[in-house]
Structure formats: structure tokens, C-alpha cells
């Protein structure tokens, strides 16, 4: 590390245009979103991938492929209006049951959320296999345990979930603000109950 100081030019970051090219190549080559942290690790010392990626995003505006943010990472994806050209690439996903879809939505909007809370919202037990299926799709993962008696496990939505549904972050979930304002994301215990769980 100390030797880096010996020759300034040797470790000078490449010009921003060159960094943009690098980010372009890296994002392009990977099917999965690439985090800024990983970009930093792969690009020459002193690069500013976060800045480069913003330039790149602008450059691709209106093109057939787009630079999109997925949580803390970035990816290149085709423009949604061109989906009709891609029948050949379409991946058949296993059809999700209504229970699984609702459970996914509840986890996404109420995260972190415990199994008991999901059941409280749906008014029915979470059937075996539902959570499994969502874990397997990597759309949900385990969050921190809830600091309530029994320390129940919580579930949260993943980056793959954001990627799949074209969301920049969990804050961009459709209707999130309205639901919050309407108080529908509150964990309201039934009247007279001491312990929600």
C-alpha cells in the first residue's frame, strides 16, 4: 500500500470517459446486477464507479437497453417496450399460487415481517411450501430476528426481487406511500390483546 505514493501517475484514476467505458463493459458482461462495491474492486485504483454509472445511465436513455439501479447495484436490461421481440428469450416461470403472491407482497410491503404477522394479515396459516418457494426463487430472505418474546425470525425482500420486478429499491414499491398514509402498513394489534404475538 505504501508504495502507491511513490509514483502518482501510475495510480492516477483513468479519465471519467474511460471509467464509463469500463463500467459499461462490466455491467454488460454480467447477467446479475453488479454492486458499486464490486465495481470499485474491479476498476483501477481511484476510479469513481458511482459517478461513471450515472453518466452511463444518461447515455442509454431512450435506447434499446437501459442502465438500471437494483438496490445497491446496477445492471443493464432491455427496454420493457421491446419485450414483444423477445419471445425466444422469455423464461417460463413456475406459476405462483395466490397464497405465494400475497405472501410475497406482504413481505415486500411490511418487511421485516414475521410469519405470525403474515398470518395475521392474511387471516390464515401460511401453508407449508409457500415460504420455501419464495426462498428458493431468492425473492425473500431472512432478516433480523424480532426482539420480542420468542425472538421470531423475520423475512425481507431481496435484491433479486427488486431486479425481477424492475424496482430501484424497496421504497419504490407501487403505492407504498399511500398505504403508509392510510395506516395500512401498521402492525395494529387487535383491541384488548396484550401481546401481538
Amino acid at each position, binding site marked *: 500500500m505504501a508504495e502507491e505514493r511513490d509514483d502518482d501517475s501510475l495510480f492516477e484514476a483513468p479519465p471519467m470517459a474511460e471509467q464509463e467505458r469500463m463500467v459499461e463493459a462490466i455491467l454488460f458482461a454480467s447477467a446479475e446486477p453488479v454492486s458499486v462495491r464490486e465495481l470499485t474492486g474491479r476498476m483501477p485504483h481511484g476510479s469513481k464507479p458511482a459517478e461513471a454509472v450515472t453518466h452511463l445511465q444518461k447515455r442509454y436513455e431512450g435506447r434499446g437497453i437501459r442502465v438500471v439501479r437494483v438496490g445497491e447495484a446496477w445492471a443493464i*436490461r432491455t*427496454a420493457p417496450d421491446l*419485450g414483444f421481440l423477445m419471445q425466444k*428469450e*422469455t423464461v417460463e416461470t413456475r406459476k405462483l399460487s395466490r397464497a405465494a403472491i400475497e405472501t410475497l407482497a406482504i413481505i415486500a410491503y411490511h418487511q421485516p415481517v414475521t410469519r405470525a404477522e403474515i398470518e395475521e394479515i*392474511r387471516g390464515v396459516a401460511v401453508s407449508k411450501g409457500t415460504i420455501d418457494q419464495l*426462498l428458493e426463487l431468492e425473492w425473500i430472505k431472512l432478516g433480523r430476528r424480532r426482539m420480542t418474546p420468542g425472538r421470531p425470525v423475520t423475512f425481507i425482500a431481496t435484491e433479486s426481487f427488486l431486479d425481477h420486478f424492475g424496482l430501484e429499491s424497496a421504497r419504490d414499491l*407501487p403505492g407504498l406511500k399511500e398505504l403508509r398514509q392510510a395506516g395500512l402498513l401498521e402492525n395494529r394489534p387487535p*383491541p384488548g390483546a396484550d401481546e401481538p404475538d
Partner: protein
Amino acid sequence: MTDEPSILETSVSERLAAEALIVDVDGFEGPLDLLLTLSRTQKVDLRKISVLQLAEQYLAFVEKAKELRIELAADYLVMAAWLAFLKSRLLLPPDPTEEGPSGEELAAHLAFQLERLQAMRDTSARLMGRDRLGRDFFQRGITEDVTRTRRVTYTANILDLMQAYARIRTKDEFRPLSFDARESILTMEQALDRLRGLIGFAGEWTDIMSYLPDDWAGDPKRRRSATASTFAATLELAKEGKLELRQAETFAPLQMRMRGDARDG
């Protein structure tokens, strides 16, 4: 009779609808789902729903199911009992001596639950209706573009991990996780005690393996434990200046003898 007007005055079409519901009873995902479906017949915003009327609709449904000898799952009946209770609370003037939440509070909570469930249904539909990866927009088709370095990495996911743990632990379920195999472990203290007694006889270089207790040299598990503790004990004694250790080369037998000054004196 006149105190149940809403059941008797239902129109033919509503009755038909109720019957259709009953045929569908397997299609409901629990009592809350059924209540939500019933609430739609009121054709008002869920915030303005009449919980009293809804309770009556539900009870009528359960009645109808009984008539048609359709067996309802227990949680539907639990809800029916609760709604009957709620209905009486809502109809009777509040009893100030009674503990617990009022009928209005309970009704408000039920309305909240229905509204929340409906909201989650709506958002899940919106979510599934979004442009989706692999259907509307696509990732890079070729991922391996430049083949230069090949590095093998191993992967496993959280399911693998939990399943592995479950597999081990269920196998062991009836076995306490304590250390019950103590009889095949020779402690360092035991080995040390033994060596202190024997050290006076080690005038010449001797393989330390010859100091293993006889009954510890056979069974591999016991032998391994005895070797380790005996070795540790020789190190301890060497540190104390009681003996010397040597090894001709890596993996060659370890030999020990009494320290010279101890030998002479």
C-alpha cells in the same frame, strides 16, 4: 322473525349468489377471505362497510352451509362464534361494568383487517402486473464473454445450510448434545501424572509412544487421544526443565529422555 330482516329479505339473486358461494367454499382462503368476498355485496368502500350487516351475512352463510350439510373448517366456525358475539355487543347498549374492548372497537379492527387484506391483494396484483425480468425486459443472454482465468468457487444457499443442519440434528434428535464419550479421552492431567511417575526411568532416548498406557494403545480413538495428551504432557515437562525432546526429521518418532542435570543429580 322480524329481528332478522336482512336474511329474510334477501332477493332471489342474492340468495343465488350465496349458494354459488357455498359451492365455492373450498375456494376461500380462510374466514377473512370469505368476509372480504361477502363485503363486496355491500357495494361500498371498505371504510364505510357495515360490520353488523357483514356479521349477519357471514352468519347466514354459515347457516346455509349447515342446511346444505357442507362441513366448514373449524376456523370458519370460530369466526362465526366471534361474529355472533360481536353482533350482540353491537346491538346491546354498552354495559359499563363489562371489561374489554367495546363492540365498536372490535368492529373497527375487523374493518381494518379487511381493508388491509384488500390493500395487500390490490398491491400484489399491481406487483405481478409490473414489467418483469424474463418476460418484459431481459438480462444479458451470454454471460461468459471473456475466458481468461478459471477460478472454481463453491456455493450453497441458506436452504442448503438449514436442510443440512436439520438433517444432522434430526438424526441426533434423541441423543443429548453433551460429551458422553469421555471414556475415550485421556486428559492431559492424567498423562502428566503418569509421565511424572515414569520419567525417572528415561535415562536413554526413548520413543514417547512407548509411554502410552497399555490399555490406551489399541483402540484408535483412545490411542489418538492418549498420544495427543502424552505429547502435550512431554512439552509441559520439557518446559519445566524435567526432560528433553528430539525428533530426527519431520514425522520421525519423537524421543524423550530425562534432562542431563536431573540424570546426573
